[in-house]
């Protein structure tokens, strides 16, 4: 089977996701300006420990290999280690994202003792000033301290996770050096206008030239830098980047949010992309296999305005979330379309961008 026909088959969906993101809590000690889940305050409807265990039991029975745990700051849950250890001992690997604030020496040792556990420490600048401008004052020091502790505890190769922005894209080599200095792996992902990112997008998203720079840099670094296949819209620039060239939303990926809502992907926390809740009858499996939304996403999608563009096969029209939250039609160009069609679409006089479903920001009441 060719790579193209595999992708065609994956687009029709699988009986279980390949890659599932599970945000454990909306609580967060930081208030990053681009937070994809508008996190800050804990939601009182958060899944209980017992409910989290039931989700893990289900994931085991449908053979999900690993979950990407995030938040919010997942370590703010009192049962964080319970959930992680239950998952790992069920044969479901855990990759979790943290800002590092709660990794002290004891927790670093406990994390290092677990098999099938990967950690991503998030930073969004290669120095304190660039990072803290996005992630908040003191966040650089916390992240570096967590990296040092993991290294001291002998955790092994953790990951350093960076969202590419207008202000850090000139630092890619420095991020790589930082990762190399710890024997860590660099993960670079695309900024989406999701969550608080709706408001931060205009200031942070890459310029056209910066997109070309990132593409060239990623091509140079191949598989040594992880991307979550998030830059496939750049494939219209030339040779494809490593990874699956497709939007996996509702087809091979999805999100379970802290209150059990299942969304098509981590970047579309909005009622239009909510497929159900793990508390519904039939649980997660029923939502994944039978929701109307996911059935629709697994149908052939219209290329719409992109149909006449010679690059559509390469870029697939880009990212659904990026289009949705910039108010663009889903069957048209990505706002960061490398051929410039997105910029043209964004310049229409009246464009109404949807707001995210929830806002758990700690300052939300004052907005």
């Amino acid at each position, binding site marked *: *089977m060719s790579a193209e026909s*595999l992708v065609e*088959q994956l687009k029709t969906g*699988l*009986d*279980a996701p*390949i890659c599932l993101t599970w945000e454990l809590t909306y609580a967060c000690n930081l208030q990053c300006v681009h937070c994809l889940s508008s996190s800050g305050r804990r939601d009182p409807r958060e899944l209980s420990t017992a409910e989290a265990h039931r989700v893990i039991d289900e994931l085991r029975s449908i*053979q999900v*290999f*690993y979950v990407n745990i995030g938040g919010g700051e997942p370590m703010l849950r009192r049962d964080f280690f319970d959930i992680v250890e239950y998952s790992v001992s069920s*044969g479901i*690997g855990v*990759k979790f994202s943290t800002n590092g604030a709660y990794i002290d020496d004891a927790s670093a040792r406990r994390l290092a003792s677990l*098999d*099938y556990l*990967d950690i991503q420490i998030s930073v969004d600048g290669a120095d304190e000033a660039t990072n803290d401008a996005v992630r908040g004052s003191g966040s650089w020091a916390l992240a570096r301290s967590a990296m040092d502790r993991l290294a001291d505890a002998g955790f092994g190769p953790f990951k350093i996770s960076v969202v590419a922005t207008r202000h850090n894209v000139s630092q890619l080599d420095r991020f790589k050096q930082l990762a190399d200095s710890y024997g860590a792996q660099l993960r670079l992902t695309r900024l989406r206008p999701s969550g608080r990112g709706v408001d931060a997008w205009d200031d942070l998203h890459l310029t056209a030239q910066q997109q070309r720079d990132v593409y060239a840099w990623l091509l140079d670094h191949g598989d040594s830098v992880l991307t979550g296949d998030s830059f496939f819209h750049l494939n219209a620039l030339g040779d494809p980047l490593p990874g699956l060239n497709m939007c996996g939303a509702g087809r091979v990926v999805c999100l379970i949010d802290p209150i059990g809502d299942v969304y098509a992907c981590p970047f579309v926390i909005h009622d239009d992309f909510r497929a159900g809740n793990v508390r519904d009858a039939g649980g997660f499996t029923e939502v994944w296999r039978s929701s109307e939304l996911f059935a629709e996403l697994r149908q052939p999608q219209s290329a719409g305005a992109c149909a006449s563009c010679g690059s559509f096969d390469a870029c697939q029209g880009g990212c659904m979330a990026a289009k949705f939250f910039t108010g663009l039609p889903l069957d048209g160009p990505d706002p960061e379309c490398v051929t410039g069609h997105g910029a043209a679409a964004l310049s229409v006089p009246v464009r109404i961008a949807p707001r995210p479903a929830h806002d758990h920001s700690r300052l939300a009441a004052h907005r």
Partner: protein
Amino acid sequence: MSTDIASAGLLQRALELHPQVALRPEPFGALAYHYGTRRLVFLKHPDMVAVTRSLAEHDTLSSALRAAGIAESRWPSFERAMSSLVESGVVHER
């Protein structure tokens, strides 16, 4: 080691699925996940899945192919696919 055995003579090697690899059946074949390296690999044909699962019961790849009823004309493509599984660590030499 893995690249050496991938280069030539794979048909005559004794292979097996790596003990840290899980296979999940899919309409196109299977997903293979290596818990050690965290690599996810696609097995793109059900016959390839059957052969891969049976490797440990056979002295060589060619005997596994024969037992699975794979026509010899298809062996070169199976050998190529198997060598990429060896390269990714999904399959290793016994």
